[in-house]
């Protein structure tokens, strides 16, 4: 070994040579002696300060919002939704707008006014209510599943992975964080539920070539249905996000949401069948919304209890859910790890 490879002046080589006592000690002036090895110039450090301006609060909040919403379309730089979730949401959306296809075909084939297709899928009180609040398939299959898929992991993933630290170590307040998560879920639900409702109403008019008279007749009903759909989105978002903030498991929030929607409905139904009282439906978020929706659209009420009980219950459900959500987000990162 050449002398320049040996750190003759360095302590390490001499120590090894001196302390080594086994056979072949003469070979011990080995690799560790090379001083350059400890310098470690791995790459060039060339740090350039940034002199730009930071955007205002809404720009930061929009970054959170787009991260969650745009993730449905592309994971590049956005939240990663499982392809199965994306596909299911697409199927639900297609299912939600399926009456439009029926109206389209009926317009193609010149179906009779007030015929079967018109009654089943045309614009009227029942169908406007049913487009948002009908139990099968929308509130049995579509909306609860959609909500469960979107809220599952929305906050619980941050709680489990500690990724909330990514937000809270930036100028993002907990209020901003909660609001943007809420808005993201509401927008996704709204896109499927409210947008499909609006699309249905608009295209029904277009396909059937209805005039201003029809529009004036049906617009109040449409607006009532729109209000109900907004209430549904708000209620499902509140409950779903509250559940997502409770647990570290995305499955818990999804399953718990479905359990609440189906469980309360089932219990109330059994009690109704056994004791002929609908009062327990005030525990069911869906039935409170359906009750309110029937009243708003001027339909015959299926519930024997007072409407005000359903409305109060609906308000309480939302309040409690938001309180739970705020409380749980406040505790994020606050506890000892």
């Amino acid at each position, binding site marked *: 070994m050449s002398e320049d490879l040996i750190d003759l002046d360095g302590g390490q080589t001499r120590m090894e040579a001196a302390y080594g006592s086994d056979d072949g000690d003469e070979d011990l002036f080995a690799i560790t002696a090379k001083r350059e090895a400890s310098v470690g110039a791995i790459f060039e450090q060339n740090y350039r300060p940034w002199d730009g301006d930071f955007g205002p*609060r809404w720009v930061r909040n929009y970054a959170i919002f787009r991260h969650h919403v745009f993730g449905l379309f592309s994971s590049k730089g956005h939240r990663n939704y499982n392809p199965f979730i994306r596909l299911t949401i697409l199927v639900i959306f297609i299912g939600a707008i399926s009456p439009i296809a029926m109206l389209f075909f009926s317009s193609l084939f010149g179906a009779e006014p007030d015929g079967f297709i018109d009654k089943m899928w045309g614009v009227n009180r029942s169908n406007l209510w049913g487009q948002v609040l009908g139990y099968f398939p929308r509130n049995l299959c579509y909306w609860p599943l959609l909500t469960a898929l979107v809220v599952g992991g929305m906050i619980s993933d941050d709680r489990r992975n500690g990724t909330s630290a990514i937000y809270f170590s930036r100028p993002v307040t907990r209020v901003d964080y909660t609001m943007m998560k809420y808005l993201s879920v509401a927008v996704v639900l709204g896109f499927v539920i409210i947008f499909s409702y609006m699309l249905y109403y608009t295209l029904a008019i277009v396909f059937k070539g209805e005039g201003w008279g029809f529009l004036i007749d049906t617009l109040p009903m449409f607006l009532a249905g729109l209000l109900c759909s907004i209430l549904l989105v708000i209620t499902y978002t509140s409950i779903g996000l509250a559940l997502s903030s409770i647990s570290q498991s995305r499955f818990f929030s999804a399953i718990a949401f479905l359990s609440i929607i189906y469980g309360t409905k089932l219990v109330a139904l059994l009690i109704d069948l056994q004791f002929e009282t609908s009062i327990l439906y005030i525990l069911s978020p869906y039935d409170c919304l359906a009750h309110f929706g029937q009243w708003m659209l001027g339909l015959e009420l299926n519930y024997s209890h007072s409407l005000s009980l359903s409305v109060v219950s609906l308000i309480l459900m939302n309040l409690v859910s938001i309180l739970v959500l705020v409380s749980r987000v406040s505790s994020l990162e606050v506890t000892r790890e």
Partner: protein
Amino acid sequence: MSDDIKVPSVLVENASKWYGQVIGINDVSLAIEGGVTGILGPNGAGKSTLFKLLMGRIKPNQGSVKLFGIDPWEDTSPYRRIGYVSESERLYDWMTGQDFVSTLARLHGMTRNEADSRAEHVLEFVGLYDVRHKEIGKYSKGMRQRVKIAHALVHDPDLIILDEPLHGCDPIARTSIMNVIKELGNQGKTVLVSSHILEEIERITEQIVILHNGRLLALGNIYAIRDLLDKHPHRIMITTEEPRKLANAFIGEEPIYGVRFPEEGKLEIQTNDLSAAHSVLPRVIVESEVKVSRIDNPDDNLESLLEYLIGG
């Protein structure tokens, strides 16, 4: 008040934090400004609690914490000037390094172009430019640590807080990260870096803070604190087949004031001057013609330093 009075980046005044019966931080006061400062302490010493206090994640039960003169619990505006690397923080594994850093840059309000350009620069700075389009999930531990540092630097913070940035890294990654930290200190930024390994910190900075059981144990220049250690007996443990013969050879040497045989085949030398003892060691061993298979310095670690400091 005069404008000449500079507000320190970090000001902790008599801060205490308890988790029920458990003490996180107990009456700690610090003021840190500029350069790299190592926060040292064994597990459970309160390093992470101190960082959480600084990051406004928890509120002190007593005292106050201020960053650039502002209480982070009350106001998140200091975070515009802070980059934080959490020890436990996970990353978005499905994103590429470039997307991840760029996305987080936008949380600071940067435009897309600014965020992309800045992300490229900081990834280059931490040595990940070539792999910036690779998914983070495919990064090694050292690369993940570096991408965490990159996302903490993307908005060009004045204060950088790194919680165990070298944890789990291989030697090359450690060297890379240490170089990055040193360079940031050279740039005049205030860098707080925690570790429970004294040697790691020693390679980065001379300015240290030692915490133990939530209390501030020592603060200042690392060599000044080590001098405290040198006032206590150091131990050198020699593994040899003939400990008694070797002990005889050591008796009478100036820096050695005692020997002990803790177990069979081991000789413990006690000294007040570790450097001087090491300088005579080779000569004595060679002259005694005793075979030595191993030499350790059981005192030369943070735990021993803490032990001496606690014991007074």
